């Protein structure tokens, strides 16, 4: 390699359920070059220092959403965080906060996936259309209304950022509520009423106290805080008008 190698210390929060009672820090010294990501640093550990260190990764290009970790206590995608930014100090990596640690840097994603499945994350057509009729027409402006919310890569960084989820895991949480809004805001979709049942509950929009950190850490500019909080007004209006507007009292 052309540039001279530097060494950085990486501390990893280890947790091996079959042998550790609770997580422990373990330190490794990793040679690196300036273009190396934190993920590559951790991969180096696994390849050459300690094969038992476990973590998820795949795409290396910030799109598959596997590699989220707490890096110096901030939720980040390890594949697009660079070792050079921590040098000459050391850095600490830990499994995403607020989620149970399955092992080492791997969190248990079951809750996230179950919630994703619960919000009807698919088009419930406003009007049926056959393939022969071609595509639904949607102007670029209509697309812009939901595009940002459809960019979520399910990396769960926002869950590691949201204290309300940490305090109460029943809260649906930022990423999934953003996805719910993505479908509600799609001009092709007519499923809002069905989804609002969850949205308008304590576990839905109302579990959020507008901390806003979710949007701060989101690597894809989804802005889940916006997806949630812009719906509180609708939810409130619906609450007060449901008995007077036709069809307003949807469950």
């Amino acid at each position: 390699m052309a540039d001279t190698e530097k060494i950085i210390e990486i501390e990893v929060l280890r947790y091996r359920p079959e042998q550790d009672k609770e997580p422990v820090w373990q330190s490794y010294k990793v040679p690196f070059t300036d273009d190396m990501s934190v993920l590559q640093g951790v991969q180096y550990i696994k390849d050459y220092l300690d094969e038992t260190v476990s973590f998820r990764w795949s795409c290396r290009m910030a799109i598959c959403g596997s590699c989220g970790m707490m890096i110096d206590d901030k939720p980040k995608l390890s594949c697009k965080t660079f070792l050079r930014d921590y040098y000459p100090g050391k850095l600490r990596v830990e499994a995403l906060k607020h989620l149970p640690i399955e092992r080492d840097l791997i969190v248990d994603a079951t809750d996230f996936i179950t919630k994703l499945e619960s919000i009807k994350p698919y088009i419930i057509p406003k009007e049926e259309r056959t393939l022969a009729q071609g595509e639904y027409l949607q102007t670029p402006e209509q697309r812009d209304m939901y595009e940002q919310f459809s960019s979520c890569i399910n990396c769960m960084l926002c869950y590691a950022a949201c204290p309300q989820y940490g305090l109460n895991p029943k809260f649906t949480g930022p990423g999934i509520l953003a996805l719910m809004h993505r479908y509600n805001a799609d001009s092709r979709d007519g499923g809002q009423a069905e989804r609002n049942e969850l949205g308008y509950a304590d576990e839905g929009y109302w579990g959020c106290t507008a901390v806003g950190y979710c949007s701060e850490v989101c690597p894809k500019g989804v802005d889940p805080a916006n997806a949630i909080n812009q719906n509180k007004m609708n939810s409130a209006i619906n609450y007060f008008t449901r008995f007077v507007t036709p069809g307003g009292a949807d469950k």
Partner: protein
Amino acid sequence: MEVYKADVAIVGAGGAGLRAAIAVAESDPKLKIALISKVYPMRSHTVAAEGGAAAVTRPDDSLDHHFNDTVGGGDWLCEQDVVEYFVAHAHEEMVQMEHWGCPWSRKEDGHANVRPFGGMKIERTWFAADKTGFHMLHTLFQTSIKYPSIKRFDEHFCVDLVVEDGRVQGVVAIEIATGEFRLIQAKAVIVATGGAGRVFRENTNGGIVTGDGMALAYRHGVPLRDMEFMQYHPTCMPRTGLLFTEACRGEGGFLLNKDGYRYLQDYGLGPPEDKPRNKFMELGPRDRLSQAFWHEQQKGRTIEGPFGSVVNLDLRHLGEAYLRERLPQIYELAEEFMGVDPAHTPIPVVPGVHYTMGGILADGKTASGLPGLYSVGECSSVGIHGANRLGSNSLTELIVFGKVAGDEAAKFAKATSISNPGAIEKQADAIQARALGIVNKADGTERIAVLRTEMAKSMESGCGIYRLGTTMQETCNKIDELKQRYKKLKVDDKSKVYNTDWLLAIELGYLLDVAQVIVYSAFNRKESRGSHQRLDGYEQRDDVNYLKHTLAYYNGDGAPRIEYGDVKITKSKPGTRAYGAAGVKADEERKKQGAANG
């Protein structure tokens, strides 16, 4: 062992596997579907596809154009009847994706927009900004949730197929979180495990793209077809291999050598023009562009620097605003990974391994020779890519043939029943014992990372953009040696919960099998065609001897047995594969000939 009884089991939940699952569910809601994936579906590597998916859309386009581009692009090694089916069903599948919510980029009038792509005569590539694969994958995954008959086995690692009574009757998988084994019994199995780019060093593929399904089918006697054809993508990030989509060039990007010269004009792709022109210059096919890079390097006209030899991808003239709108992800990649602002500085790029053209031998309806076994997606070879895939044809392949695979497997499952469940369970136990053997071995000495690195390096030197008999021979020997050393592999991690060390070890076994097939197939093909280019006396295409598919058969511990199969030719006789001005001329001549032949 826990047993789950399904009608159709699908291994792989990328674009192909998900589309197949939905097809089975729609064809008959009573069929029980097991959808198995070693990662959560949305992590599948389809997520990384950027540019788009091809389907004839504009009034000035035609199915024949798409057919000709694909077959010519594939250097006539395509199954032409399958290509005909493919181009005919592409558009309706795009519309289907749209109905399911895929956020296709739109024109002002509300219709889906199309963009130009390398090797395509007319704009026909549907896109969702530069995150097309991401949006297709998430749309398919989220839509699949609608169907209660799809039971997902997320983070389940498939270790083998169960073949009993001469047909596939299930798969065995490890539940990664617990290390427990599961037998998934099924009357039909669809393999949709994606490509094998990880056999190489610098590549655009995700860490999970390790050729698992190919190796599994191969070990059960199904041949792998045309595996020597590995696509090099001309514009990748040096060292990491991350991709700068072809759309960069579709939108008007230039490739420059160290003199700032658009060198592609020296390789039969000119003349250069300011605006992108389909099948000219930067919009030539990937194999040609990667080869041109190699020649520039030989001539000392590449740029030498900290990243090795590179050329420049110049997007500056497109302006920041346009780049941010059309290529936001590319902008981000360049800025964050390389510290390069593409609006002001050209991006250094190199060719990197990108796509596995070959795969599990399948007929035009995705069926393999082994009854009950279907394959679809990058792991499969239904025959549309030939010797070189055109960009944006493979996302379309996932959905067109995903549906076919689902329909066919459903039909097969309905017509059969499980035979001999006792024997199936016994087999599953044996599979479990074998998989555990890898981790429980006492006398191992070899390290996973060491073998993997040696393999990748050797593949790169033997099966690069240009190939030589001697180096290929060296690589054959090297892979044979690594397969022996693999038997002495040492797995440090002995735990059950999320033991990725163990999975890496199993994947390495798959990689080595696939690597061996690639290099032996390449060694035996004594001609140059598409992405397989030789420099040792076989520089020309040889239709007399090699207008044939390579079929590699598993042969235990020995080298694969190489055979050849016919290519199905319907309406396009092999011609000169030319681009740029020469391409226009060749087209005209073909037309004249066609008219003369009546």
